[in-house]
């Protein structure tokens, strides 16, 4: 066997390229991934599993050779459930750490705190949480589900099951208020009606008089848009008043913080939710995700919908970078806009280029003995709420968050 000069040179280049890989992994030339989440404080139950999801996705990508031949380095910031820290840490990530992408933010308030500055700093931003929809910003990708995917299924289904009169209990900030308006919209479309909507600050934990008011109004069902630990008391006091058998509950938020595992079966059973993720969904990509999570963290008890979509977010971004072949922000955005898909824990998710939102598989879920039992599945639901108002192909400089008018 003879080797000519050209073949020898090819082999040598390949070998030297291989030899440099480890030094890339350890050296300065890594892809910097900023993760900004509340991993302590009152939103810890949401944030901690989301951070784990980031770590899992990044470790898997790195184990498979990284992105563009580089390793991803995760730079995590804990915002301690304090909105003020979001702007501070976002600034530090863009100026000092010079990250290539930022994933995170949980409450809508936190997203709106950093969205303008990240756009200004030209740092790509992924917001991976279920939210009220309507963000129209070319620098942002919203991977979580929106009312068109959640309330649009949940409300008509609940009206069909239980009747037309809905009483809404919602958290008193932008998520709760805008989602309530969507519930009113979808209730009207399905021939139902929201007879009353009450809003609660996040620290309210006494619902006694509310429960009496609900009974006075005699609705056919409750639609709960309650957020956080204090609001969880509602379900307990509802059950303690013996109301569970009388008026059923549908909710947009239960199980985002694994609330169904905190409530006892007698308090939680029968509550209906609609979301993109269930640990009980047994298609292969979800099983693989659950197995990988279990291997890395020991158990899968803490995974919730927004952890699964955080994982999806990292994967979608990685697919975009692969397709673009560069980390250049505009090129990555263009690659993502071309309609990147990924099949993971929530099934197939596809980015909608016009709105930077994501098409999801959705499931109508009943809480049964502290587990999420899928009652019905809906394939590939588009983010049609944001699609009605947002077109980034036509208006690439739009930065507004649109709200539904009632």
């Amino acid at each position, binding site marked *: 066997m003879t080797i000519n000069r050209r073949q020898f040179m090819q082999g040598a280049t390949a070998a030297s390229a291989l030899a440099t890989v480890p030094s890339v992994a350890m050296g300065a030339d890594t892809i910097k991934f900023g993760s900004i989440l509340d991993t302590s404080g009152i939103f810890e139950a949401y944030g901690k599993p989301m951070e784990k999801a980031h770590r899992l996705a990044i470790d898997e990508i790195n184990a498979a050779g990284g992105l563009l031949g580089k390793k991803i380095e995760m730079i995590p910031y804990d915002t301690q459930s304090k909105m003020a820290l979001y702007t501070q840490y976002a600034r530090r990530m863009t100026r000092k750490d010079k990250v290539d992408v930022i994933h995170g933010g949980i409450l809508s308030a936190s997203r709106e705190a950093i969205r303008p500055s990240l756009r200004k700093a030209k740092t790509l931003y992924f917001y991976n949480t279920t939210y009220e929809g309507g963000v129209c910003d070319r620098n942002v990708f919203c991977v979580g589900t929106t009312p068109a995917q959640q309330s649009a299924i949940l409300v008509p289904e609940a009206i069909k099951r239980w009747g037309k009169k809905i009483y809404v209990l919602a958290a*008193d900030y932008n998520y709760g208020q805008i989602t309530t308006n969507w519930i009113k919209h979808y209730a009207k479309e399905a021939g139902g009606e929201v007879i009353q909507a009450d809003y609660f600050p996040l620290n*309210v934990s006494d619902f006694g008089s509310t429960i009496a008011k609900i009974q006075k109004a005699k609705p056919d069902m409750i639609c709960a848009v309650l957020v956080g*630990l204090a609001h969880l008391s509602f379900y307990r006091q509802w059950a303690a008043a*013996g109301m569970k058998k009388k008026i059923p509950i549908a909710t947009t938020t239960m199980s985002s913080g694994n609330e169904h595992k*905190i409530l006892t079966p007698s308090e939680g059973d029968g509550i209906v939710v609609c979301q993109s993720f269930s640990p009980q969904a047994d298609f292969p990509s979800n099983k693989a995700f659950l197995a990988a999570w279990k291997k890395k963290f020991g158990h899968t008890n803490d995974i919730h919908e927004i952890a699964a979509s955080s994982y999806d977010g990292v994967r979608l971004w990685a697919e975009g970078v692969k397709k673009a072949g560069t980390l250049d922000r505009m090129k990555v955005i263009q690659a993502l806009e071309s309609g990147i898909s990924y099949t993971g824990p929530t099934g197939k998710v596809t980015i909608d280029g016009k709105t930077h939102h994501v098409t999801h598989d959705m499931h109508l879920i009943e809480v049964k003995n502290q587990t999420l039992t899928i009652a019905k599945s809906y394939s590939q639901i588009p983010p049609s709420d944001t699609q009605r108002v947002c077109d980034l192909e036509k208006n690439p400089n739009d930065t507004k968050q649109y709200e539904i008018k009632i």
Partner: protein
Amino acid sequence: MDLAAVVVYEVLYTIAFLALISAGLAVVFGMMRVINLAHGEFVLLGGYAAIVSHNTLGIDIFVSMLVIAPLVVAAFGVVAERLIIRFLYGRLINTMLATWGLSLAMIGGFTLIFGPTTTSIKAPIGGFAVGDYSLSGYTIFIIASAIGVILLIFGVLKYTRAGLIARGAMQSADMASAFGYDTSKVYMVTFAAGSALTGLAGGVLAPLVGIGPTAGLLYIAKAFITVISGGASVVSGLIASSGFFGIVSQLVTFATNSVIGEIGLLVAAVILLRLLPTGISGRFFRNRL
């Protein structure tokens, strides 16, 4: 008519809630002038004690709430008093700083041991109906507990020798020690008694509100408002101010919503303290218990 009964019921519940979470503080702050900023976490400790002893150890729920929770918190109170608070008697600002530190440490400890989520137990009493309305039967138990706690404080302070000694030592420590009483021990026992009442509140409230590491914030502000507005007399002040705030906040809540109800409570407190700077009992129930 049914609705009126429901409103009265909810008002009574709110009064009982305020009286329960404030009773321990009324003893610790009202009698000993110790500002315990970890009061909310003491409530939580009682709740956790009840939950663990019922869920994990399988002890009867009423024993867990009414016996185990107060004992655990009283024991913790003794430790805290011996290690931290007894060095700071009479130094208001320093006590606040120290107990605030204790509160942060307890939040951290709860998070480490129980995790960041809320835990709870199922309410042991079911609902019942008044006309068209269905009400929580457990609320009656809360109201009864509050009445029991108030009678207990009153009885101990008024009719027992220990109560007399405690009152004497709080009024004039020098005089009490001149009579041969160990005031340091009296303070310790009083603090433990206050802690036990706080633990009892946590125990009986656990099935209704759920206990999480940071839930202490829900209690501390209301407890302080109730105790300060109540004024110097432990029992009559407590009854007067929790009655007043319970009625104001619940009636406003029924008329409007819970946000305005909370605001109503705070506005009422500001006006009350402007008109009666020494609290309700500073004006109306002077020199009573």
